[in-house]
């Protein structure tokens, strides 16, 4: 299905955004000797487009995606592509995926798609594939090897034998805190594919993996978790510059495990609490992370946003464009060998809204 943007509607939206003149765009420092290699890309994720009935959708979530698309179209310098990080839909239905695809079609850039659990568990990604293609794949771009994984599959028994209807299966997985859910994983078949895909990539080529769930184990209760994370990390270990960018968590997170940098992205729909704020749970949050601001629910878009990513040194510099907050940049620091927040990393620079409890 191809949906072309309506030109008049696009110009109207762009004009409104430009008039607000709040665009958080910055220029890019050049680090590669070969400046042709420098590029940026956009990252939009977790829009959770939610169908009410007929042609009605939850307005709040629609606005998040519409705003991100409009802002991404005004990026300067222009990104080489945009990634949509999964959970376009809330319950994986055709109306939700169609409505989301229509909004995303207004992007002026080549868009790559990652599959989220909310897109998947109704029909196991069948309609999503009709719209967006393969569940996992890779490509090369200006000296960087990019990989998209489907990291949200789970045990066969849970997927095929446990639930009387696909609708119930979707609902059980859609509840983040539902104890009837099941841990995410990449699985044997895809890991075998990944090992083969990486064979042909030289070890000094920067590798960037896009997944929906974190390829690390943070908190199992909310599936801030990938069950075979260590095995995927082992496949990435031989590469000098490896990065994983993931959605699902709706919050700022970053981490460094060995040579692998991890960056989470914000949702366009709503923020999630940090697992550390759930008093009954054990969790392991990355110590490195300076949290996002605690959300103010009276501002509908607070603690939501989208990202643009500068790849000029083969590592990620992640700029968070936050609709109602001060923007943040988390960039790989070659001196310390890990991602750091460019403004707030020092404890003395933190602000009270970054304290979560």
């Amino acid at each position, binding site marked *: 299905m191809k949906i072309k943007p309506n030109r008049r509607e696009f110009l109207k939206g762009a004009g409104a955004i430009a008039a607000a003149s709040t665009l958080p765009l910055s220029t890019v420092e050049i680090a590669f000797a070969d400046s042709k290699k420098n590029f940026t890309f956009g990252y939009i994720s977790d829009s959770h487009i939610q169908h009410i009935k007929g042609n009605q959708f939850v307005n709040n979530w629609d606005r998040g995606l519409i705003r991100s698309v409009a802002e991404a179209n005004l990026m300067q310098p222009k990104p080489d592509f945009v990634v949509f990080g999964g959970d376009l839909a809330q319950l994986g239905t055709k109306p939700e995926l169609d409505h989301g695809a229509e909004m995303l079609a207004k992007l002026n850039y080549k868009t790559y798609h990652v599959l989220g659990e909310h897109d998947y568990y109704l029909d196991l990604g069948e309609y999503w594939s009709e719209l967006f293609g393969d569940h996992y794949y890779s490509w090369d771009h200006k000296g960087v090897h990019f990989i998209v994984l489907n990291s949200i599959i789970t045990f066969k028994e849970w997927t095929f034998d446990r639930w009387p209807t696909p609708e119930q299966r979707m609902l059980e997985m859609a*509840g983040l805190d539902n104890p009837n859910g099941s841990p995410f994983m990449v699985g044997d078949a895809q890991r075998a594919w990944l090992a083969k895909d990486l064979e042909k990539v030289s070890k000094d080529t920067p590798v960037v993996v896009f997944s929906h769930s974190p390829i690390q184990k943070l908190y199992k209760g909310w599936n801030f978790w990938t069950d075979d994370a260590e095995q995927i990390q082992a496949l990435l270990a031989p590469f000098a510059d490896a990065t994983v960018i993931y959605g699902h968590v709706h919050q700022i997170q970053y981490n460094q495990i060995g040579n692998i940098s991890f960056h989470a992205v914000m949702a366009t729909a709503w923020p999630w609490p940090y697992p550390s*704020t759930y008093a009954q749970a054990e969790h392991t949050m990355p110590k490195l992370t300076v949290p996002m601001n605690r959300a103010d629910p009276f501002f509908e878009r607070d603690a939501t946003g989208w990202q643009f990513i500068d790849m000029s040194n083969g590592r990620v510099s992640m700029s968070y464009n936050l609709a109602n907050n001060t923007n943040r940049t988390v960039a790989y620091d070659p001196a310390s060998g890990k991602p750091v927040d460019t403004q707030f990393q020092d404890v003395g620079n933190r602000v*009270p809204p970054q304290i*979560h409890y």
Partner: protein
Amino acid sequence: MRRKYVWISLAVVAAALAVVGVSLQADEFTDTDVERWQGEYMSVVDDGRALWGSPDLGTNGVACGQCHPNGANTHPETYPKFQQQLGRVIALREMINWCLMNPLEGEVLELDDPRMIALEAYISYERRGVALDPGKH
């Protein structure tokens, strides 16, 4: 004659107390009593948990749990507190009503509505063990 009425009245009161299962000895209760009372509370917590994930509390299908998994980020131990966006000190249930009206696009609940009590019971249960800290931001 008057004495007869007194005795009848006392008998009626005693019978009523026996029916509702209340001991005349107020300071004595058993493990069985405690277990039953905890069960009563937990049944309301369970009602609250069901409402927390329900698409029917508001009008747009959005559920409380979508933004607040396990009731997190609701901070029941900090209420009543000055809700700076409203400019006054409020109880938690007023904030619950704010959420019902806004993200859920629904109607407010009466402050003593059993559903309101159930929501509050669930939120507090998920926060058990955290020290009271009214007014905290």
